[in-house]
């Protein structure tokens, strides 16, 4: 990066601060703290500043949304020439900003030798492309998820390496799906094959984590106080941890390492927070808690994600809209039956129509999010949506038969102009992970392989 480019971008940041006030979610920005970091990194390794950046130098972001229980396929997939079907109707006005990809599979979501438990398994496979070890809890193992690979490669560029969210807090007690540990069913993101990254269900906590607690006027100060307090406490925690580690037996140590990794990561983040000292600000009111209406709930979590991207607090996110197997009913749509129950409809047309209606409901909220993304200007004058790659889908194709081929996948955003949109891309049957490694390539991570990936997709803009 040359000097003139970086100072040019600082102007962009100023411009951005001016215009962001008043759009959907109003945001005021500090002078792009991550840029300082980028410059520092650039002098050490020339390749690093290429990461997660568009050709114009704007941040390039990725996000993953998961929907449960597959889709009603005959209502969902568009025609070859991209005429949208019922379920995708809400995306009509955004048709130039996304594409539907068919032909992607998750072979590790199939039963194989593992038998029942398709929902938990699919949930665990979706972003990892790996097969979840069938265990009720003692030796959980799946794979690192695509978002976490990204976070681990360029997460240091932003205030938070990644953001994991959910709009589903329903938990059944007792054993989870057919002998699978609950971790598989309730987490999308995995920072190691054995470590799920718990998603945050509380919008209030997300906002306070990003911007500080209290009313808008006191947030910045509270944020700084929190950082200061955390720093001193963490020093103590690390000393204590070293004492504890010294005394643990071999087996205990394995589990404790998971904890130590987190504490060390947090410590290094707080140290590097010198660059991120001044938090971004927003005058969005603090959410009071979790909305009772599911639509409102999805919307507020999407809003939190938008805020995080807008302020460049992170470039990586996952949002578990509802865990796979969710049996939520939709009285607001006149559907009293449970979603999961309805998907096993044995092709009864009336029941299938209800599933399609639920699919559309999920898409509607996704479309609202994309709309806001498309109306929010990024530092380079393009929209946030332009500078993003957003995957929406799941690891079950047909919820009735539990197939895992030709999965429902939407890829929204233009990747900063690098990828083509406005089409139904039919690819030869291949692993979903091929899409993920292609995205990681676009982000410049240099990661060769993920899960069961066998190659790349051609997404290039023509």
């Amino acid at each position, binding site marked *: 990066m040359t000097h003139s480019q970086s100072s040019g971008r600082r102007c962009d940041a100023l411009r951005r601060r001016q215009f962001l006030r008043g759009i959907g979610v109003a945001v005021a920005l500090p002078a792009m703290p991550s840029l300082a970091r980028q410059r520092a990194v650039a002098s050490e390794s020339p390749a690093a500043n290429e990461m997660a950046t568009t050709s114009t130098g704007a941040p390039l972001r990725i996000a993953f949304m998961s929907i449960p229980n597959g889709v009603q396929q005959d209502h969902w997939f568009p025609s070859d020439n991209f005429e949208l079907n019922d379920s995708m109707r809400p995306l009509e006005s955004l048709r130039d900003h996304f594409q539907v990809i068919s032909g992607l599979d998750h072979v590790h979501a199939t039963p194989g030798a593992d038998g029942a438990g398709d929902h938990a398994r699919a949930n665990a496979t979706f972003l990892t492309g790996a097969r979840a070890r069938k265990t009720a809890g003692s030796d959980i193992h799946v794979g690192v998820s695509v978002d976490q690979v990204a976070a681990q490669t360029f997460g240091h560029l932003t205030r938070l390496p990644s953001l994991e969210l959910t709009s589903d807090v329903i938990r059944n007690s*007792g*054993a989870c799906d057919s002998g699978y540990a609950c971790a598989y069913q309730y987490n999308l993101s995995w*920072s190691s094959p054995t470590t799920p990254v718990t998603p945050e269900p509380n919008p209030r906590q997300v906002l306070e984590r990003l911007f500080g607690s209290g009313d808008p006027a006191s947030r910045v100060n509270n944020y700084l106080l929190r950082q200061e307090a955390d720093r001193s406490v963490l020093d103590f925690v690390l000393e204590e941890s070293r004492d504890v580690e010294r005394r643990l*037996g071999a087996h205990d140590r394995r589990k404790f390492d*998971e904890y130590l990794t987190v504490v060390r990561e947090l410590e290094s983040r707080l140290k590097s927070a010198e660059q991120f000292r001044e938090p971004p600000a927003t005058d969005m009111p603090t959410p009071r808690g979790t909305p009772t209406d599911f639509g409102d709930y999805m919307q507020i979590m999407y809003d939190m994600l938008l805020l995080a991207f807008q302020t460049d607090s992170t470039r990586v996110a996952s949002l578990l809209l509802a865990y796979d197997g969710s049996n939520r009913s939709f009285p607001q749509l006149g559907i009293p039956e449970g979603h999961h129950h309805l998907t096993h409809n044995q092709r*009864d047309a009336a029941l299938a129509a209800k599933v399609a209606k639920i699919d559309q409901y999920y898409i509607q909220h996704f479309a609202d999010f994309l709309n806001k993304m498309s109306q929010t200007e990024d530092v380079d004058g393009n929209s946030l949506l332009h500078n993003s790659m957003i995957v929406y889908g799941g690891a079950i194709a047909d919820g009735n038969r539990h197939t895992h081929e030709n999965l429902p996948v939407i890829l929204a955003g233009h990747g900063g102009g690098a990828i083509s949109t406005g089409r139904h891309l039919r690819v030869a049957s291949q692993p979903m992970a091929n899409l993920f490694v292609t995205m990681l390539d676009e982000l410049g991570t240099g990661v060769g392989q993920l899960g069961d990936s066998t190659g790349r997709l051609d997404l290039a803009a023509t």
Partner: protein
Amino acid sequence: MHIHVLFVRLMVVISIGTICETCSADSTSLDSYDRDIKPLLQKYCGDCHGGGSSDGNVTLDHFQSAEEAAAVPELWWKVLKNLRSGVMPPADSPRLEDSELEQIAHWIKTQAFQIRTDHIDPGSLSVRRLNRSEYGNTVSDLMGIEFDAALLFPPEDSGGGFDNLGDALTFSPMLMEKYLQAARAIVGEAVPTVCKVLPHQTLVGSDFQREDSKTRSSRLDGKKSATVEATASIDEPGDYTVACRFKVDGSFEFDPARYTVLFRIDGQERLSQEFGWGDDQYFTQTYDENWSAGEHAFELSLEPVVAKAASDGDDQGGSREDTSVHFELVSLRIEGPTDTKRLVHPDRYERFFTRDEPPLENAQREAYATEVLRRFTNRAYRGPVDDSTIDRLVKIAQETYRQPEATFEQGIARAMVAVLASPRFLFRLENVVPPEDPDATFGLVDEYSLASRLSYLLWSTMPDDELFRLAEGGMLRAHLAQQIDRMMSDDRSRQFVRNFVGQWLRTRDVTQIVIDPLVVLGYEEEFQSLRENFRSRSRRLREEEMSEDDRQLFARYRELRSIQDRFDSDLRTAIRRETEMCFEHIVSEDRSLLELLDSDYTFLNEKLAEHYDIPGVDGSEMRRVELAKDSVRGGVVTQASMLVITSNPTRTSPVKRGLFILDNLLGTPAPPAPGSVPELEDSASRFGDHEPTLRELLAAHRENALCASCHARMDPLGLALENFNALGMWRDSEHGQAIDPSGSLITGEEFQDVRELKRVLKDQHAADFYRCVTQKMLTYAIGRSLDFRDEETIDRIVQRLESQDGRFSSLLQGVIESAPFQKLRIKAPETVDLSSKITPPSTELAKVTQP
């Protein structure tokens, strides 16, 4: 000091390494494979799993030697489970004699599982983090405040059916941030940062009384006029501040109601304002008062806003029924007089500080800080704390309190934040009594660790003073039985019921499950059309002006509306409590656990009794109710909790109900899973002109051998419960077709209805149930998944239950006295536990072991 010595000894043990003596199985037992075991397997299993047959991909006759046979413990574990549950040999084949089964079981346990029955290995346990509810309870007990961890922390991921398993309790950056945040918030609320404050007193809702009744509450219904009053007495005249915290909440369907509120102090108006619906909104008002000594009165009045004249077309119509609005004075805090000389300690001062005020001189301050922090940290860490930790904490405290303007208490509070963020607080770190045998691979946990194991099992919180005192004196093991009794009769043992029964029988889920009563009871369409009708007209409809037809329709609408609301929080609570109270009853009277399968009593209040169609139970209080001789109720499988949580939002699921019984009551092992699930094609065309019943659909399912392997186990159990709808209410038919609850279990027993099924379960499957409940409770108690190495431990507890008629105390004592609960691995036994490898001692470790 004691701890240091202990650890040095443990380190030495680890660094030396040992030769395992338990690995070579004794030869006589190995011989018994050829002599005794092989012929039995040939006789009972050979037709299907030998001589070239391999049903379910299982063969039992291909081993060249006894050693080869013993080398596949996972296979023998399956064999053992299937034999014990009676699933194998199949129902129509010859059965093993008890002695033959015992012979096989013994060989499997001692040879294939390599269990030393005289020296049971406790197994490998991961260090456990406090889960969300344990953390909340521990904080509340330690700090003396109510802390609701569910507001800040996400739910934990369970493993093996419980949310307290070390291996399943994971850690993430977000969680660490939350622990830091929580530590600050908790200390901020609980720990005083000054020594003296103005005198103060606080009134709460129950201090307020209605003029005309005995009800004590300051929560007022926005649709009814009411006045509540309270008084406070002060003995020193002067300037006081009165801070009132108010709350506005409610819900409405068509139109919210409005009302005015008047708040008076000593007859003087302090607040007069109109309110309407609010979504849990809180606000605080502060009033300055100059008071004389004596009584002072507070009065809160509410008056509904009367509907405006009908002519302006904006009245409330007939919809007020659906509106609920409330105004509440949550608390009233009086502080003063502002210039008093009689300052007092803030709340909870004595909980954390031991002197009236901190000393002023530096060295004395340091000594006092050390004393205060040691006292606190010993409790927080649930065992004696190291000097090095105290030194660090005192430094943190000093850094703060040595600053100008800062108080001593602020410094202490800052250090306490660090304590609550420490891994020694967040994790349950355990120590072992140094074993005499230097080669030992496991030993007894020390008394502090045992105290924590007991308190987290029975109370889901930290040990109390008595447990600490006993542990400190090394007297806890000697008083174990007496302590268990004391702990079980303490109120905190409700946590055991909430958390253990809540997850085992899933009663926790009753509050969140969504069931639509109108659909379940078949009124959905009628209700929707009535609702549309009245919604479109609500603006102008007044009941007294309705036509007779409208009036009847409206009455019907209200009736259906009340049906829609029937599955409300009161009923849900009653449903959850029924199951919990049945369990509590068995615990407190030390009755047989078999009463969970079938009993001639249950626990009901009026609402739940009405739900069950049982007459003669009045009032909201839950109490023991004797059931009629032919009653279908009594026993978990007929309780609404189980029936509801296994249902879909609009209908029952016999499959889920069957699975619940197999998983949670019988522990019947899962059959080999099918590779792929075939689709049920065109069900409608199979049944010609009629809509197939659930029973017919499931029967079609079972025609496929692949499906039958599972569904033959689940379906008969679930179909026997079809007389209970998705809300757990009785029904004789569904969609006009009579329900046929008869069937037979995979083990062969036949039954005509749920009454007979319960009897079959209780009479024929008591051993399965004992084994199942033992496994559940052992898992919960020791915080890890069980494996085949635990079979002997389980067997002993099951034997104890059988010999003591299933009494709860035999289960509880059996679990607490078991090796996994009493002991802890120091290192992995090398030959038995191949999966966990010993990490070579680190350089730091080596340093510790240097003399």
